[in-house]
């Protein structure tokens, strides 16, 4: 090593380094022992350099199984000039990690990436300046590779670890450091292997469901099988704790209508939850899944105009070609493969809750209010569960564990059973969509109108509601604004001079508890919208791909449309194939869509069995433009998953309920796509190195839904108005044709 010995450097470093040691001690105490969020305006909040020349990056986003934890480290490593093997992260924890907002709306890379990139750039700049002083060489004469700063000729060198190892930067994060240009990236935009997978294949990865703490009881919730109308909730008429007498050690704990059982042994808790004699007040407040669309469509709503330009009504009245398309889309469940689980240790003046939330800080806020503790006295730690795809029961189970721990006076682990998760989910809401679209004789779109009926999300978790909290709508937070008609998926990709998008908002209290489900409502929107566009193409005798090309001006939309068509080797098919009388008819369709950002295009090849009504996707092609893609391999994997999940949602998934409550409570009554029906999938990443990073975890599903719907028409010559496209529905549509 060259330059000043460390002791001398510390003396020479002046204000920047004085107090390192004291501050170090204080910071080490602070990280973990004091309530966060840590100060986002400090570099030390974002990263730490260790003596062994490695770095810890403090990431505020949850790994939801989509690979973003690897991609965010790629960004940090690249900007710091460290190798991937030199960077790591820590568990998401309200006492440790910064508050970057929740992990929703595909925000990890889009919103979190720039923050981490800028913080890393600023740390690198500071390290360069330290190295310059240490080596007595101007920064312009220094270069860095894998955390080793050296003179250009290599004669003098010092590592990051030697410069600040195990100490803090003690520097404000100003966001002013220049970041690298895409041409300088070494790790970003490369297919680095996911960091979390080795532990996941060998069984050492700790999922939330694995967490056990000393002195813990096992808990289960006791509720009616299947939630009732949100506004009605569930009320206990009678409960008999004596019914648990045959299970030694099992106890009933109660907070209003919130019932739970705890026991030392897990199997005893499971048995106790089944065995508890409890009667619930009867209710018949729901329309039932068969009649829900009627109720939604007939509801008196006030029209809320989302977007308007030109005069859609006038243009529709006078256009050469006008089409209309209806969509009825069911409630769908997140149905994480492993039901949610949480462990809580609630004491008189503090609480520690471990759960699989998308937002540790939001969960902390709610738990603190429910437990009547100051927010800073509650600590929430994130443990990955199985894929959640949005607001599954992770908050509900965390609240259940907290209530039971508070009542029991010791730590409690609550594992939701399959029927709890399936029955008490915040479902993706049902939707009725009506679209009218018009084109002139030359094949140019002239008008587009979308009316959407759906209710908002619920704001109170079942545990809280049963314990006495009011059923309220979900109003606040960063996910607001995606509870209604989406201006991007509903015609937003096309050049239409006259356009009107209208929301008909329904009161969630009259329906089922709801929340954001991966690409919220977009599958439903695209199912209606992209079929209408397709209808116009067929009416005009123009190939549906060509028709879309003619009506799109935006390069990004054209890019994904072309990429999907090219991958599928699309050839013009101007007239929909008519049913040929054969048993199996094949069809191909194309579609576009997205969520709040990015661009998605898809082509679907499907087969319809005209005798049984069974529809199977044979091959799905999905293209995404998410700007600069940090890890193309991970995004390809995301596209594949989105295509398969879309097929599952279009062909199988529907929450069923009667007038009392939800009746789809397991994988038999709520089937999902299986291996034998799984299509081939072809993912296409449209890489845009010079564009801003955007989300890629949900933005191709709408396009795929549109493509599948259009492929059905191509195969059969008839349009589906309702999904899932179950054999029964398909046969009834074919019979009517």
């Amino acid at each position, binding site marked *: 090593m060259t330059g000043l010995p460390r002791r001398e450097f510390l003396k020479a470093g002046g204000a920047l380094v004085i107090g390192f040691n004291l501050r170090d001690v204080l910071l080490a105490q602070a990280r973990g022992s004091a309530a966060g969020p840590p100060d986002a305006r400090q570099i030390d909040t974002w990263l730490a350099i260790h003596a062994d020349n490695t770095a810890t990056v403090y990431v505020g986003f949850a790994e*939801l*199984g*989509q*690979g973003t934890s690897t991609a965010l480290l790629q960004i940090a490593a690249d900007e710091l000039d460290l190798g991937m093997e030199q960077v790591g992260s820590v568990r998401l924890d309200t006492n440790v990690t910064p508050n970057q907002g929740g992990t929703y709306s595909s925000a990890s890379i889009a919103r979190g990436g720039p923050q981490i990139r800028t913080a890393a750039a600023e740390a690198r700049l500071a390290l360069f300046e330290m190295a310059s002083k240490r080596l007595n060489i101007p920064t312009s004469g220094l270069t860095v590779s894998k955390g080793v700063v050296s003179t250009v000729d290599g004669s003098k060198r010092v590592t990051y670890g030697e410069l600040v190892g195990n100490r803090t930067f003690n520097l404000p994060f100003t966001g002013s450091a220049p970041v690298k240009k895409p041409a300088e990236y070494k790790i970003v935009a490369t297919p680095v*292997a*996911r960091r*979390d*997978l*080795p532990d*996941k*294949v*060998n*069984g*050492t*990865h*700790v*999922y939330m*469901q*694995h967490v*056990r703490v000393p002195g813990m009881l096992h808990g289960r919730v006791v509720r009616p099988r299947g939630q009732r109308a949100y506004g009605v909730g569930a009320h206990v008429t009678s409960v008999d704790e004596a019914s648990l007498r045959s299970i030694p050690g099992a106890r009933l704990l109660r907070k209003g209508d919130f019932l739970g059982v705890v026991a030392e*042994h*897990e*199997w005893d808790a*499971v048995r106790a939850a089944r065995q508890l004699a409890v009667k619930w007040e009867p209710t018949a407040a729901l329309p039932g899944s068969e009649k829900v669309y009627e109720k939604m469509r007939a509801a008196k709503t006030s029209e809320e105009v989302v977007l308007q330009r030109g005069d859609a009504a006038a243009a529709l009245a006078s256009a050469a070609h006008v089409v209309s398309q209806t969509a009825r889309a069911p409630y769908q469940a997140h*149905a*994480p*493969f*492993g*039901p949610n*689980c949480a462990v809580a240790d609630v004491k008189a003046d503090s609480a520690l809750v471990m759960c699989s939330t998308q937002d540790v800080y939001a969960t902390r806020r709610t738990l603190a209010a429910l437990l009547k503790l100051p927010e800073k006295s509650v600590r929430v730690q994130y443990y990955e*569960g*199985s*894929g959640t*795809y949005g607001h599954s029961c992770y908050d509900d189970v965390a609240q259940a564990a907290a209530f039971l721990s508070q009542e029991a006076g010791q730590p409690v682990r609550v*594992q939701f*059973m*399959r029927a709890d998760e399936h029955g008490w989910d915040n479902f993706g809401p049902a939707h009725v969509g009506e679209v009218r679209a018009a084109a002139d004789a030359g094949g140019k779109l002239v008008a587009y109108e979308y009316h959407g009926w759906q209710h908002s999300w619920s704001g109170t978790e079942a545990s809280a509601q049963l314990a006495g909290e009011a059923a309220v709508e979900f109003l606040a937070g960063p996910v607001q604004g995606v509870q209604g008609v989406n201006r991007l998926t509903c015609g937003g990709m096309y050049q239409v001079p006259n356009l009107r998008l209208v929301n008909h908002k329904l009161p969630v209290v009259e329906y089922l508890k709801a929340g954001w489900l991966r690409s919220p409502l977009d599958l439903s929107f695209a199912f209606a919208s992209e079929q209408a566009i397709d209808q116009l193409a067929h009416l005009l005798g123009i190939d549906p791909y060509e028709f879309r090309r003619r009506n799109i001006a935006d390069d990004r939309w054209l890019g994904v449309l072309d990429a999907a068509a090219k991958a599928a080797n699309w050839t013009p098919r101007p007239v929909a194939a008519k049913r040929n009388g054969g048993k199996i008819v094949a069809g191909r369709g194309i579609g576009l869509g997205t969520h709040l950002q990015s661009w998605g295009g898809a082509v679907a090849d499907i087969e319809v069995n005209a005798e049984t009504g069974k529809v199977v996707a044979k091959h799905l092609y999905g293209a995404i433009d998410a700007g600069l893609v940090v890890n193309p*391999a*991970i995004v390809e*994997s*995301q596209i*594949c*998953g*989105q*295509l*398969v*999940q879309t097929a*599952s949602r279009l062909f199988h998934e529907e929450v069923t309920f009667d007038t009392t409550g939800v009746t789809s409570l*397991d*994988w*038999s009554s709520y089937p*999902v*796509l*299986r*291996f*034998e029906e*799984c*299509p*081939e*999938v072809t993912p296409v990443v449209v890489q845009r190195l010079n564009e801003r990073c955007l989300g890629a975890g949900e933005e191709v599903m709408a396009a795929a839904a549109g493509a599948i719907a259009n492929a059905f028409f191509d195969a059969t010559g008839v349009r589906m108005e309702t999904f899932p496209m179950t054999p029964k529905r398909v046969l009834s549509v074919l019979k009517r044709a």
Partner: protein
Amino acid sequence: MTINVNGKASTVAAAPDTPLLYVLSNELQLQGPRFGCGLAQCGSCSVLVDGVEKRSCVTPVSAVDGKSITTLEGLPMWYAVTKRLARVPELHPVQQAMLDEQALQCGYCYNGMIVKAAELLSKNPRPDDAQIKRAMNGHLCRCGTYPRIVSAVRRAADMMLKASAVAR
């Protein structure tokens, strides 16, 4: 009672009707088998019982008395024993192939996927895609990673055939 898990005899305290899953998770702290449905519908809790895939969530611990249980953690050793390898590999070829294909997303279902695929390849070393899908059809993946699992099982079959060829 005493149960034999991953080549070791372990004394467990659970009542005989306790599902094996809870015993493996809570008494033996194994993380491979995990709760998914408790109804034998999803495959999350799969283990091998005498080399045959079983759903531990509905198998009473008393039913495995005298039998040999292999969990995800024990698959490399089970592979070494059944293939008479000189040493235990770090991973079963199916585990390695899942990594090579970067097949996983959340990975929660992969306990069952890996256990089931290992069982399949122990019986049928050269399954075609249709056979793989048929064998795996009782295992659900909510992330939609089926296509990569099929590729990984194919890849694992190749790896195992090559290893056998070398051994001969």
